[in-house]
């Protein structure tokens, strides 16, 4: 009878392990039920990117993404976790195709949900065309899976955030959980600064980056449904909560999303900074939101923050 003891230690480890700091593999190990993870095309298959050698760059045996099957509180789930430290978690040909294949299977089965642990800067520059197209295929596969009744949940809290096509893919998911350091955007701070100048966006102003793209703003805006603390256990609980909440997807969801986004634009379209949006949402002392501890922030978000339930 060692199993309960083992489970307790795993939970304790999950509680004390930073999602932000850990690797894709550690996240999956601690997110799923103990020992339940089975990988598809693991590193021993050595399916590396065929393109990095053109640039004389090192490969990684799993091309920066771990995909497979496991259990969450006893129920089967498909999972994909990007490794944000390898090439910024960027989408390349092989990396993307693994996620596409997983989503296509989920669509066929139609009853097993998919968890995507995003940690990505977007398209991998060295294979930009393949990466862009991989993202287009993933977005299509997410929508086909959702149309078949599959719940697709995104978990965002890694060091590379969720940028570029990753941000668009996250926008296709049924629901998102995000932690404070989990940034969601299309153009990264450096990209905006390079293209539009430091007056438009000062990428070295970290406070500006967090309040414009970070998890707290995304939660208050209604871009994410659940705010998670930066530990793997909290993401596990967030995933379970979201899987219990997600309703069916259809034309009505898209009509509701159109209304939700148009409403956001009319309410906040003239705001110059996140603090202005938070103040317009009715938050007193909006400027103090970035400093709020998680528990106080969650209370605030549940009172004020918008949700996108059934509107995405």
């Amino acid at each position, binding site marked *: 009878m060692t199993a309960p003891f083992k489970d307790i230690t795993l939970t304790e480890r999950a509680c004390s392990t930073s999602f932000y700091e850990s690797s894709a593999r550690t996240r999956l190990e601690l997110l799923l039920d103990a020992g339940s993870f089975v990988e598809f095309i693991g590193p021993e298959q050595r399916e590396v990117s065929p393109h990095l050698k053109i640039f004389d760059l090192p490969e990684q045996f799993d091309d920066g993404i771990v995909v497979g099957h496991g259990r969450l509180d006893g129920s089967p789930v498909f999972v994909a976790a990007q490794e944000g430290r390898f090439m910024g978690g960027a989408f390349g040909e092989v990396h993307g195709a693994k996620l596409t294949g997983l989503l296509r299977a989920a669509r066929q089965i139609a009853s097993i949900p998919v968890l995507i642990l995003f940690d990505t800067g977007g398209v991998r520059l060295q294979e930009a065309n393949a990466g862009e197209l991989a993202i287009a295929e993933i977005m299509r596969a997410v929508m086909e899976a959702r149309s078949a009744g599959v719940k697709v949940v995104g978990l965002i809290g890694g060091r590379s955030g969720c940028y570029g096509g990753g941000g668009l893919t996250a926008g296709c998911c049924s629901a998102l959980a995000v932690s404070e350091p989990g940034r969601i955007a299309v153009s990264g701070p450096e990209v905006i600064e390079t293209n539009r100048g430091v007056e438009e966006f000062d990428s070295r102003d970290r406070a500006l980056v967090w309040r414009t793209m970070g998890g707290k703003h*995304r939660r208050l805006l209604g871009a994410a449904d659940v705010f998670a603390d930066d530990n793997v256990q909290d993401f596990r609980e967030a995933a379970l909560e979201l899987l219990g909440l997600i309703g069916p997807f259809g034309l009505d969801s898209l009509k509701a999303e159109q209304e939700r986004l148009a409403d956001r634009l009319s309410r906040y379209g003239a705001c110059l900074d996140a603090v202005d949006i938070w103040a317009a949402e009715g938050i007193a002392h909006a400027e103090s939101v970035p400093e709020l501890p998680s528990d106080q922030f969650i209370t605030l978000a549940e009172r004020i923050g918008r949700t996108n339930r059934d509107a995405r």
Partner: protein
Amino acid sequence: MTLDDILASLFPKGHEIRNDKGVLLGSATLRRGDKMLVLGVADRTALGVDEAIRLSGHVLESIGLASGPILVLVDSDSQRMSKRDELLGLNEFLAHLAKVLIHADINGRPTIGLLYGHSAAGALLATGLATRVLVGLPGAHPAVMDLPSMAKVTKLSMEALEEKAKSTPVFAPGLSNLVQMGAVHTTWSNDSSLADQLEALLADMPAARDQRDALGKARGGRLKAADIAERVRDLALQAR
């Protein structure tokens, strides 16, 4: 070819397509008299939250009221790179546009993208790459990433990148590279009527199943994607 030339050649029976600050909205009449919903981005306009919400709204308004195929014209910049757009959740607006197009396509409103100018990054994902069939016109010059930015990140010279681009379609800008990757299904000719080519495509639309990885493999541009996706799918089906 200018946008007006393209529209005249595509729709000799007439169209009601307005260009409002680079956002194209309207509809057109096909040869047999049926209507086609038309939307798009023109004049190399950046795709931001304001543009995206109008485009997605145009498609949603037509669902239920109209039938028939949807054409997405693309001559855009990248996504709009600004603090305001990101602050308001540009990723959601672009995703929403793509979702609306994909939803329409798999529910009886086949979508065709027509890339006639530039496009890049998130703007291409939300428009042309969210359609079932993406067609390129000669002279279109998409660039997922531009070479100067790539040179900066990879710390390689432009000359070195251009040299490498000769041996692979995988990273460099250009229509022919996207054709080889399977992103662009076909390229039309400017020398014959675009209406003929559109009618021929509509008469022979591929199934609403994403076949771009198979196309990329057949054309030698993406040799691994289709096989990897298929292997993962098989393993996942066995694992349940």
